[in-house]
């Protein structure tokens, strides 16, 4: 199981701040595809991804227990 966190407009679009998915051995590209298909979101190319609170490359392989966060372009400060 992996947990996926959503923030800002993604949280609004998806209607939830997190979902839990059965996944393993797949990479972030696969996860993005699953999320965009399921929630009909096509702007995930502008979204950074963090795995366990560190930015991760799209090719990163996800493991059971990972916490993945979708990070839209930030606007703090």
């Amino acid at each position: 199981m992996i947990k996926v966190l959503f923030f800002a407009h993604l949280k609004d679009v998806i209607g939830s701040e997190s979902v839990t998915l059965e996944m393993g051995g797949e990479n972030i590209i696969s996860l993005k595809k699953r999320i965009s298909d399921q929630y009909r979101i096509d702007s995930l190319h502008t979204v950074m991804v963090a795995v366990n609170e560190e930015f991760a490359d799209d090719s990163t392989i996800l493991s059971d227990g990972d916490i993945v966060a979708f990070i839209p372009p930030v606007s703090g400060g």
Partner: protein
Amino acid sequence: MNYEITRNAIDVQEVIDKVISRNAGAVTTFIGTVRELTYGKKTLYLFYEAYEAMAVKKLEQIGREIQERWPDSLTAITHRVGKLDITDVAVVIAVSTPHRDDAYQANRYAIERIKEIVPIWKKEMWEDGEEWIGNQKETVAYPKGKPEEKDLHD
């Protein structure tokens, strides 16, 4: 605790006190406040959201980067989240160094990095609507899924 995310009003002096030192001759602060007008559009208030655990880690990372570039510096950053009214303080960055040139440069570095890598988002509330800033304009895209080298090190 030099790097904090808080839901409460930020005490500027408290952030400054963290970087005061016998070796410091200069302290710069950057205080980000909520502005009413942005390019003529009137903001009623803002809402800030953070991925808090990661945001603190990224603020700490910025602190380490500053330490590497300006070894004699001390840095403290507090960012507020939640609802903020016009003139409220959203972020305070304090940097102390022996000499002033470094204090200005390191401080400027910190705010630019916050706007690049710290997972905090701002929603602007207007009379006729609201918008999460940073996404719909899509002025920044991350085709590789994470910040590129140039985003990370400029």
